[in-house]
């Protein structure tokens, strides 16, 4: 009897010790967490076999079982990014010229450069970006949950998306619009209209708004078309080359790229109608009610446009900062009367953007000219040249 009793006491003692350890561990964690930076968060700890270890340092928020969405809205996103030292930017990773993955695994493109521009403005380093490649289905959830700070993934700004919970849209960086492409041998020209496509087999990729747009346009013009959809636009193009489709339709930027790269020698492709059948303004998207962060993203875009107007380029940014052509350029590049400090940025934030990434025209021509998209005469020309690219004054 006494023996088993002593065993019992020893057992209780051990249990007591274990609970002491537990308590001590909890405290340990509190301390370390307080001193630690935002923690080597999960993104690095990829591929954990066991769920638990995916978590670097367990949370310390004991109260406030805050909803994730609210959580991102509570804190100041701009400050969060500055503290983190990296901008999380959502891109596609497989969108020609906008965000493509090069053979070394790096990302490049028009959207990618705008991510880098925002990072240059906030952190002074265009390379301080962590890209997340998102599918079309994932992208809005990623913004709403705060998985990415800003989404620049050829996303069309629409009323529905803008009023949706958790998202706001920035200024348009590229004006796109749905067009059609056909063979000139079938009697089409670049001035053809929707009413000319009666009886044609029209192909597009499924699950996008292009399908609805072309059906609506055909209805409005009173023509009959056969609409075939395929899984993605590569397959659509293959069918177009083989002659299974008379006409293909998607955003104009996509069609121009396909024409430049895939038109066979024995075919002549034409893109029409001159006025697109839909409006697709593409631009950055970020979390709702983060006005400080929103200001920074918006004015980064505007800064590249103003720099284009003033002729400030990557090459002459230093020179221009030293001898600014006018007062607006001086303010923009961080000279006297600069406005960046009030936004929570360094005075030379936009000088960094232009110096490290370039102005609007440079970003555009670097990525979109190689696939045959030219600014001239398009909606993406500057407002002085009859286009829509326009920025409010920096004053």
């Amino acid at each position, binding site marked *: 009897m006494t023996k*088993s009793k002593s*065993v019992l006491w020893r057992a209780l003692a*051990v*249990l007591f010790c*274990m*609970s002491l350890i*537990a308590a*001590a*561990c*909890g405290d*340990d*964690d509190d301390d*370390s967490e307080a001193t630690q930076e935002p923690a*080597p*968060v*999960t993104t*690095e*700890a*990829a*591929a*954990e*076999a*066991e*769920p*638990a*270890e*995916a978590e*670097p*340092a*367990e*949370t*310390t*928020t*004991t*109260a406030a079982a805050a909803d994730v969405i609210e959580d991102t809205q509570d804190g100041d996103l701009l400050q969060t990014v500055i503290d983190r030292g990296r901008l999380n930017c959502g891109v*596609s*990773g*497989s969108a*020609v*010229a906008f965000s*493509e*993955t*090069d*053979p*070394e*695994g*790096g990302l490049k493109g028009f959207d990618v450069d705008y991510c880098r521009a925002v990072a240059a403005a906030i952190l002074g380093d265009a390379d301080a970006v962590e*890209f*997340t*490649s*998102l*599918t079309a289905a*994932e992208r809005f959830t990623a913004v709403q949950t705060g998985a990415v700070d800003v989404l620049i993934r050829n996303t069309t700004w629409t009323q529905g998306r803008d009023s949706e919970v958790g998202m706001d849209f920035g200024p348009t960086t590229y004006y796109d619009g749905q067009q059609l492409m056909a063979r000139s041998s079938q009697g089409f020209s670049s001035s053809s209209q929707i009413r000319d496509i009666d009886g044609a087999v029209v192909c597009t990729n499924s699950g996008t708004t292009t399908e609805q747009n072309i059906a609506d346009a055909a209805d409005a013009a009173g023509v009959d078309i056969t609409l075939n959809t395929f899984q993605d636009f590569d397959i659509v193009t293959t069918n177009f080359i083989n002659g299974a489709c008379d006409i293909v339709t998607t955003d104009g930027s996509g069609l121009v*790229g*396909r024409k430049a*790269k*895939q038109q066979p*020698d*024995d075919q002549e492709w034409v893109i029409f109608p001159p006025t697109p059948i839909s409006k697709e303004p593409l631009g950055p998207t970020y979390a709702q009610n983060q006005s400080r962060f929103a200001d920074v993203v918006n004015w980064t875009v505007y800064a590249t446009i103003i720099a284009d107007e003033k002729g400030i380029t990557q090459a002459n940014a230093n020179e221009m900062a030293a001898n600014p052509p006018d007062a607006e350029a001086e303010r923009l590049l961080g000279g006297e009367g600069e406005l960046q400090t009030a936004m929570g940025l360094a005075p030379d934030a936009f000088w960094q953007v232009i110096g490290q990434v370039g102005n609007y025209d440079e970003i555009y021509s670097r990525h979109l000219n190689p*696939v045959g998209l030219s600014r001239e005469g398009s909606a993406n020309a500057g407002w002085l040249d009859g286009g829509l690219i326009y920025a409010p004054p920096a004053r």
Partner: protein
Amino acid sequence: MAEMRPVDIAAASPASQTAEEAVSLPPEQPSTPPREWIRQNLFSTPFNSALTVVFGLLVLLTARGLLNFTFSEEREWDAVRTNLRLLFTHAYPEEQYVRIWVCVGTIAVLAGLSVGLAATTARGVSVKRLSSGLMALGAVVALGVVLREPSALSNADGSVRRNDSGVIRESFAEAMVDRWGWWLAAALLATAGAALWFRFGDERRRSTFVPSVELFMGVTAIVVLSAWVYPWGHYAFTDGEFIAEPGRTVAMSTKLPWTVMWLLLAVALAAGRRLRQAGAGSNFTLALNLCWLACPFVLYWVVLRDPDLDWDRVLSVDIPLGVLFAAGGAAVLWLLTDQRIGELGRIIAALLLGLAAFNWVAAFWGWYPMLQKVRLSFLLVALAALLAHNFAGDRSKRLRLLTVWAVVMAVFHYMATLMNSPSSVETPTEAFVGGFGVTLVVAAFTLLLSFPLGVMLALARTSKLPIFRVMSTSFIEVIRGVPLITVLIFFTIILNLFLPDGMEISVLASAVLGYTLFSAAYLAENVRGGLQSIRRGQFEASDAVGLTALQRTIFIVLPQSLRVSIPPLVGQAIATFKETSLLAVIGLFDVLRMANNVIPAQTEFLGVKREGLLFVCGVYWIFAYSMSKRSQRLEKQLGVGER
């Protein structure tokens, strides 16, 4: 442990001994002359002749189509050559690329040692088959040369010349002359075959065997050496030009690294054989198998991930925690292995399990914060405590248990620390390995984790305790009733919502988790089939000699049942490997997504998709086929189906 036991048994069994010494070769088949064979098998009746002709033509037409597709001037194989790095490792940084080779090298060394150490039961290929095979291969190459349509003529700028009726091609005679390189290859193969045939003059000498290992090493040596002659390897697209082996770093090239890998394999093979001759015992095999088990973890978390340890934290938090739990757990185990403790021990174990479970429950309400690994450590302590009574005994036995416990705790806390440290490998996107690498990582971890889970589920399903039986059966039936893609989407999207506040799990981790559960459910059914093949007598006999349930399961039941279930288990493993391509759907950049979405979106290779897909098919096929070959060898070694 359990899976290697049958190997030992088989190695010791007399059946494999005889095969090894090749004492009783199967009776020689009298060989029929080729003409006679063709008459008997292909043209025996008019109907069979018709079938042969029709289907022969079909095969030839298919081959012609495939050849025309592959060698067409319109194919842009540069898309694959330039993107090899993307296809296999995604964005793994150039300056750290040597780490990839360290991984390949480690696997080569382990494979070489394993093959060298294994008792070879297979005799390989006879010289006769080898020489006729070489000659046949030469004939196939020659046939291919003739079958393929003449090449298209090209303009000065490299584009294909056309007229109104289509592409302009060279004449048949010109094409045959132009393909002299292929003719040469065909002639070389046929000559090599014929040379072998005459070198080994008589029938008796022709039936000497070339061991398959030597054959494999020879073929790979030729492939590796050919890379020095013809630049198969990495290409770069720079300033509008394709450049072979841009040679920024040695690790980025193909020639030298692959040569080193081949040499490592050869040296390890030789070392393995030397060890076997020197009589390295089963202890060495055990150590080697443990290395195989540890290999994915070490390669992934230590070598590839290159954790950036925060030494202040390691010294102040991680090491003390590890020591505390090792000591605390040891105290508990020492107490519970005391033979006098009786039923009280089980109560304490149950209380510990309750405490561990409470830690997890508390996490959901955020009651008191605690490092995740502390919760896991508590769980491990509780599990060890539950099993402790099996190891009750004298002092040395108890001490051995404590040693095992200390090792487990050390490994666990080491791994947890590694996982919690940020990686110092810098890539533009979050995942540091992608492409085929992610396929291998997911397949390796899924198989490694789902095997023990599957065995446990199978045991639970055949258990006498209704609660285990019901839990396991319902789990298996639910998972098997749901498509894999649903499970993967569920885990990647929904799982994060169920996790405690502040805890997040990466897409890759949740994919591995979901995939493990899925695969385990299927493995469990395969293992259960094996369990049911064990006859009653085995159970009764083990009861009669007084084995505990645990001992009976480990030493009697599992070795026999696992041996029986090898064919379905390997089938499941191959299916698991291939189905990793579903990862592309949940947004991971695996090799299929690279070929299907990423490469066709590059400005240089806009819309170039078919080449990449064909290449990916080839890569998958090579791996799946070698797995299936390996399993055939294993079945032969273990004599599955012979009893």
